[in-house]
């Protein structure tokens, strides 16, 4: 065996929900998502396996129902088969749902690639009283057929042996010929001859297949044909138009439909005479259907859904609380350690305020996101997510969205307190690009976990009488904003008919632990990679913006002098307690507490002076002419600029910017109290600020995800510019309206 022979390229193809990903994981053990939702595998995944010295390179194609050119998944699958010409396709077929699954098999066979059929879910089929004559099926299909149960890793060695055997069999592709009846066959024959004679696209595609695609009006193939040979392509289109016209007149149908009918006819003929014996067909209610009677019940269904979502939040927040606090502790420990280790100066400031605080803020979210992903993976793999989409589609359709947009909204903080990053990633379950874009552009409006503390603080400061009401109002506001903007997008730049819904409701299944783990970890790792690659740079940049240009020496000296002066009033042993290097005992005399407060006040004043002088401070000041309309001064502007990196930075920046309060002994005043006392702020300004924070640009990590998921920088740029403009407009309207109504206080 030569070296090249030892490397076999194998593709895995199959319908969504047929257990393809489970099988792929079982063979390669690779990190690969196992979903129960149609079309979750959008990317091409590779893995390898060594069988007696033969290296199998396995590529997991996206799950598709057919090989047309409508969805990106189908195009990916088809292009891979045609361009890469794998030696064998392992076609995973759900034995409990044979007819529909074989529809894809037919199309692969028509391409002529050697196929091994993995007849999966044999256990489910047996439970349902389905008997399949494997030998007869193999004979009629002309392929090897291997029974498997991917969940239990049954039948995998046999499958791989069969694959290697099929790879040895043949090097040339032998396409399957199906008769398409008296209307199609003659013209198909004629077209096939023309194509063969001209060698038209034949290096990649079987002649009959190309002819079929012309009859099916397949845009991609026709476009390719036009580039290869304009004249022949035109002739073929003419032939196709002729027969289309004829079929329309005589049968009131069109070639594509006739072709599909014959494919299914071929399949049912193939399964006749004892190949497939089914005890029950339509009228038997399986356990899954009985569960559905309750879970999608008119009244119970929505109620149970609310409980499930509540449970998901409960689970996520309860269990992530501990690791989140551990991480916080670890980072503050690290900051403390660095604080003692490094000498005073810009390096220390960079390490602590820039890197540790910035990166820590984002990494601290990882446990939360991990649990969120785990919860979604569970709902997805059990099949519940498809039911949620089914129940809610009617509502979301009004806004030009899809039933499944719901999950993205919820994960982003639809009930308050999620994260737009997994939310944007959750839009992957949407197959149609327009609905998907509309969802991922609007989902950042939801009130994520980083916006919540800002809201909580402002509400506590200005609306303490109506906390719950205010929070409810904000939730309602964010939903309205997201849905209305989605509607707007769908009737302008994302205009177009809604993509067909046709959603399979897969049988409920208990997810495998392995599947859940791989699934959760893969997504979490993606988040860490995405965030990690960029957050360090952004943290440093933001730190630099807020620290430079530095205070002139004279100003620094001014604060230093104040500190020295303060210390001289305190006896030597107490000095460490005043500067914060040692704890100040509660029982200490009031004047020491006063001195401690004064010390902190000096620190704050210096921080404020530094911030005001920094590039961010100047930028904030420069933006005042615009932000005035919304009632924001430069301090708020700086905080909002910080929020671009991560929304939780808003709070800490506001803390610095509003550090100047009363110079009295009440140094323990919380930020919320300080804000409430600040004469520049009032309830109207606070409301404006909350609305602005809700609507303005998604944070940087979310933007990175948008780039990845939407496939272009332009959408991320759009989200930044458009959302910020929208926020400005809405907030200015609220603020100016409020002032006119005399609410400006």
């Amino acid at each position, binding site marked *: 065996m030569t070296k090249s022979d030892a490397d076999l390229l194998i593709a895995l193809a199959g319908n969504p929900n047929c257990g393809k990903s489970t099988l792929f994981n079982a063979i390669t053990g690779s990190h690969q998502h196992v979903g129960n939702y149609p079309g979750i595998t959008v990317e091409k995944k590779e893995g390898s396996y060594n069988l007696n010295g033969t290296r199998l390179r396995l590529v997991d194609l996206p799950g598709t129902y*057919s090989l047309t050119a409508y969805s990106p998944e189908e195009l990916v699958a088809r292009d891979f088969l045609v361009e890469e010409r794998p030696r064998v396709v392992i076609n995973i077929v759900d034995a409990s749902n044979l007819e529909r699954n074989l529809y894809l098999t037919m199309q692969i066979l028509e391409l002529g690639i050697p196929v091994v059929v993995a007849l999966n879910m044999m256990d489910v089929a047996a439970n349902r009283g389905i008997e399949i004559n494997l030998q007869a099926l193999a004979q009629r299909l002309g392929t090897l057929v291997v029974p498997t149960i991917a969940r239990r890793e049954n039948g995998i060695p046999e499958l791989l042996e069969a694959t290697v055997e099929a790879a040895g069999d043949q090097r040339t592709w032998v396409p399957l010929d199906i008769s398409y009846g008296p209307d199609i066959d003659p013209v198909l024959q004629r077209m096939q001859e023309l194509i063969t004679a001209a060698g038209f696209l034949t290096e990649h595609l079987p002649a009959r297949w190309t002819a079929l695609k012309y009859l099916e009006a397949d845009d991609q193939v026709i476009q390719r044909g036009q580039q290869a040979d304009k004249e022949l392509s035109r002739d073929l289109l003419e032939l196709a138009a002729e027969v289309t016209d004829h079929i329309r007149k005589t049968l009131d149908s069109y070639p*594509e*439909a006739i072709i599909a009918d014959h494919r299914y006819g071929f399949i049912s003929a193939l399964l006749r005479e004892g190949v497939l014996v089914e005890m029950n067909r339509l009228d038997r209610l399986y356990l899954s259907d009985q569960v559905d009677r309750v879970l999608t019940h008119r009244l119970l269904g929505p109620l149970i859904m609310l409980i499930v979502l509540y449970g998901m939040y409960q689970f996520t927040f309860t269990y992530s609380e501990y690791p989140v606090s551990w991480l916080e502790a670890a980072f503050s420990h690290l900051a403390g350690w660095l604080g003692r280790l490094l000498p005073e100066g810009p390096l220390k400031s960079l390490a602590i305020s820039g890197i540790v605080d910035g990166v820590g803020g984002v990494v601290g979210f990882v446990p939360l996101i991990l649990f969120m992903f785990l919860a979604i993976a569970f709902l997805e793999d059990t099949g519940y997510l498809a039911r949620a989409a089914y129940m809610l589609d009617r*509502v979301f359709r009004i806004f030009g969205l899809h039933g499944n947009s719901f999950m993205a909204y919820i994960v982003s903080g639809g009930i308050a307190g999620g994260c737009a990053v997994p939310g944007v990633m959750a839009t992957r379950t949407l197959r149609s690009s327009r609905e998907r874009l509309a969802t991922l552009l609007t989902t950042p409006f939801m009130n994520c976990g980083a916006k919540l503390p800002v809201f909580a603080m402002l509400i506590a400061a200005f609306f303490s009488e109506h906390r719950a009401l205010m929070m409810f109002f904000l939730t309602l506001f964010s939903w309205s904003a997201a849905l209305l903007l989605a509607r707007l997008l769908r009737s302008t730049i994302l205009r177009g008919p809604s993509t*067909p819904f046709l959603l399979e409701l897969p049988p409920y299944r208990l997810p495998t632990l392995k599947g859940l783990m791989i699934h959760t970890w893969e997504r979490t790792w993606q988040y860490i990679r995405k965030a990690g690659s960029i957050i360090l740079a952004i943290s440093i940049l933001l730190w630099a913006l807020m620290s430079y240009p530095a205070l002139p020496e004279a100003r620094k000296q001014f604060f230093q002098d104040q500190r020295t002066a303060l210390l001289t009033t305190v006896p030597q042993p107490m000095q460490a307690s005043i500067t914060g290097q040692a704890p100040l005992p509660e029982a200490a005399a009031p004047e020491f507490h006063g001195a401690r407060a004064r010390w902190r006040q000096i620190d704050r004043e210096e921080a404020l002076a530094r911030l005001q002088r920094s590039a961010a401070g100047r930028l904030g000041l420069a933006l005042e002419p615009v932000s005035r309309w919304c009632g924001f001064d430069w301090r708020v502007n700086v905080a909002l600029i910080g929020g671009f990196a991560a929304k939780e930075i808003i709070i800490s920046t506001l803390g610095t910017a509003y550090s100047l309060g009363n110079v009295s002994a009440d140094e323990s005043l919380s930020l919320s109290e300080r804000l409430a006392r600040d004469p520049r702020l009032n309830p109207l300004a606070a409301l404006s600020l909350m609305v602005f924070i809700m609507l303005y640009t998604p944070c940087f990590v979310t933007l990175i995800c948008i780039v990845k998921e939407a496939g272009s920088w332009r959408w991320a740029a759009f989200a930044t510019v458009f959302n910020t403009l929208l926020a400005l407009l809405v907030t200015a309207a609220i603020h100016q309206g409020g002032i006119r109504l005399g609410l400006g206080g």
Partner: protein
Amino acid sequence: MTLKLLRYLNPGEIGIIRKVTAEGELGRRIRDMGLVPGTPVQVQGRAPLNDPVAIRVRSFTLSLRNSEADFIHVEVENGS
């Protein structure tokens, strides 16, 4: 033997698909799912807001919007 649109099939009632009038992408999606003439279908249930509808076809459950079901003509045993 009466012909009616899939939308009007009662829950539990079995109908045989006789005609699918959708073209383009919708038509292809419908066919990909095995909804071709001669196929028996049964309405399993409806979403809380009456739309989409869940049907059982070829031993799996499929949901589709009412507007999509309107392209599918089915024949029922006893005219109802």
